[in-house]
């Protein structure tokens, strides 16, 4: 599937977004995991603290019991030292332990039960110690023998063991969680890495495919251009050859047509000259012997022959003009162009000045709009194009209104468009193409001409890399639009002095 530009853009955006999301997710995961790890670590430490505190509590209670036992046995106050230290410390240590347990998430009820048991133990110890101090050692021993203290002490041991084991279990669970988190972190980082790797590879492949597609398209365009250029070159050469042939043909034909015409014209004139003495003879015979002259002979010499000669002469002259027109067109086709810088505005203004006399005679005015560019073209050809068009505009004005001829132009990237507009009699739409053909004319044939001018204009405009077209409304006027290349094309043929019509 070919990748186009917008698709490439969308895909690469998608890949980038995916990569960014993966990065973001893995970052967020890290932050979360670090937090979790920290809380696990804190938990592990606090579980440990609970265990230490519990064992310290137990040892304090044992110290108190040891002091009591030593005092009861010996009756000496100095054995009471551990008891007193423990009794002094326990009211501080006991609530602290309870708090720690609760803060560690331990069993609050068990903690409180421990507290009560410890208090009960301390009460039993205090009772016995005070009995012994007051001298009632026997009664104190009796209290001990009730096993009240032992039972409580066992319960305390058990509770402390329970607290320790639960706290240990919690710590282990937390260590487990910590390890799990570390694994999760590793897995997450690995997954993010894999995802980013995939995104990178995907982006690379995409870019490569897009580049390949671009290169292929470029190669295709280059190939198409090359073959197009070749085809254009071939066609141009073929057209130039065909054009050359047509030009040569027209040239040869017009020369060969001229030779017999010289004879027709020459001998017609000779005939006319020969008729003159005959006319004199008829006149003489009419005077001397009128009976000899038949009306037919008289009509033949004085009317028929001169009439025939007249028609032959006018037809021959017309044929000569037509041949000259073909010759002129063929010559124009063979003439080497001499492109030079031309100020179109000055050139057309100059043409208008030379036409001023005809304009005045026709009562017409010519307006030249400013803004015509400078071009690089063949001066003679450009002059002939606009000379013919202005000539036509003046020639076919409408006698019913004052003639107005406007010439304006504008420039495109490669061509100049010049419009020669008149308010003359106009041209029938059926004839808009035909008038550019040789010897074709349109409308009333009340003006002299052979139908050559516009054919000539078209041939010239085309040689200068342009064309001419006509828009017209009968009765309103005509506009001839000439396009000319800003830079006239190079000569396509090379007529040389070696060309001969033979």
């Amino acid at each position, binding site marked *: 599937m070919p990748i186009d530009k917008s698709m490439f853009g969308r895909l690469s955006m998608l890949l980038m977004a995916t990569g960014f999301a993966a990065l973001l997710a893995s970052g967020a995961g890290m932050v979360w995991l670090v937090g979790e790890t920290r809380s696990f670590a804190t938990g592990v430490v606090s579980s440990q603290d609970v265990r230490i505190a519990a064992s310290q509590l137990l040892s304090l209670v044992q110290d108190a019991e040891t002091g009591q036992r030593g005092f009861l046995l010996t009756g000496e106050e100095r054995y009471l030292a551990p008891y007193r230290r423990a009794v002094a410390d326990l009211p501080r240590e006991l609530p602290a332990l309870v708090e720690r347990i609760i803060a560690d998430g331990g069993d609050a009820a068990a903690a409180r039960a421990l507290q009560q048991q410890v208090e009960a133990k301390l009460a039993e110890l205090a009772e016995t110690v005070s009995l012994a101090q007051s001298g009632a050692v026997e009664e104190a021993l009796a209290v001990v023998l009730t096993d009240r203290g032992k039972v409580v002490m066992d319960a305390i041991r058990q509770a402390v063991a329970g607290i320790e084991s639960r706290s240990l279990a919690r710590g282990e669970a937390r260590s487990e969680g910590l390890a799990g988190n570390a694994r999760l972190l590793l897995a997450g980082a690995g997954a993010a890495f894999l995802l980013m790797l995939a995104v990178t590879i995907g982006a690379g492949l995409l870019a490569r495919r897009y580049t390949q597609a671009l290169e292929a398209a470029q190669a295709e365009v280059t190939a198409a251009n090359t073959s197009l250029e070749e085809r254009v070159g071939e066609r141009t050469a073929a057209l130039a050859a065909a054009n050359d042939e047509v030009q040569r043909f027209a040239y040869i034909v017009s020369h060969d047509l001229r030779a017999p015409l*010289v004879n027709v*014209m020459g*001998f*017609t004139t*000779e005939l006319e000259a020969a008729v003159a003495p005959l006319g004199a003879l008829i006149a003489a015979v009419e005077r001397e012997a009128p009976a000899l002259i038949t009306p037919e002979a008289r009509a033949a010499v004085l009317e028929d022959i001169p009439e025939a000669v007249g028609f032959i002469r006018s037809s021959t*002259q017309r044929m000569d003009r037509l041949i000259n027109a073909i010759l002129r067109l063929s010559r124009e086709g063979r003439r080497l162009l001499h492109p030079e810088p031309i100020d179109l505005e000055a050139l057309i203004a100059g043409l208008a000045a030379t036409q001023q006399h005809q304009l005045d005679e026709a009562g017409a005015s010519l307006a030249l709009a400013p803004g015509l560019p400078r071009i690089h073209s063949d001066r003679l050809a450009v002059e002939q194009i606009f000379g013919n068009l202005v000539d036509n505009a003046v020639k076919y004005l409408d006698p019913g209104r004052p003639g107005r001829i406007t010439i304006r132009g504008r420039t495109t990237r490669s061509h100049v468009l010049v419009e020669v507009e008149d308010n003359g009699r106009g041209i029938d739409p059926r004839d808009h193409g035909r008038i550019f053909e040789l010897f074709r004319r349109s409308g009333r044939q009340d003006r002299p001409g052979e139908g050559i001018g516009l054919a000539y204009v078209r041939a010239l405009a085309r040689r200068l890399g342009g064309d001419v077209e006509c828009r017209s409304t009968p009765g309103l006027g005509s506009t001839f639009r000439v396009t000319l290349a800003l830079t006239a094309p190079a000569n396509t043929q090379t007529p040389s002095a070696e060309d001969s*019509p033979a």
Partner: protein
Amino acid sequence: MNAAPQAVTIVMVEDDEGHARLIEKNLKRAGVFNEVRHFLNGTAALDFLVGHGRPEHRPLLVLLDLNLPDMSGFDILARLKADPQLKPVPVIVLTTTDDEREIRRCYELGCSVYITKPVNYETFAQAVRQLGLFLAVIQVPPTP
């Protein structure tokens, strides 16, 4: 009628007999009565001018058409101008072609006058009569 040097001839190379006749008529009307040797093709004309039948004396003038059936008038012009003996003979090209390049080429090859045969007969006759005037002013070459 002037006593023209009868031995001096005008050589006319013209494939169109009508044209030849019209030229002769108008030369006579212009008062040129020299003998006119008419050739309908280039081969015969060259045979007469530079071949075996080479005349003892040089012709007064060569009237040459460019469009001949067997060769181009340029070839005949070049042959005449390459011949040391015939080189001084004036050659007048009288043809239908009025192409600038051909006119230039004829002058380059050494033709004396180039006249276009106009279809208009009055102009044609005028051109031939001017030829008569031209003949009147050129010196009759001294016989060697």
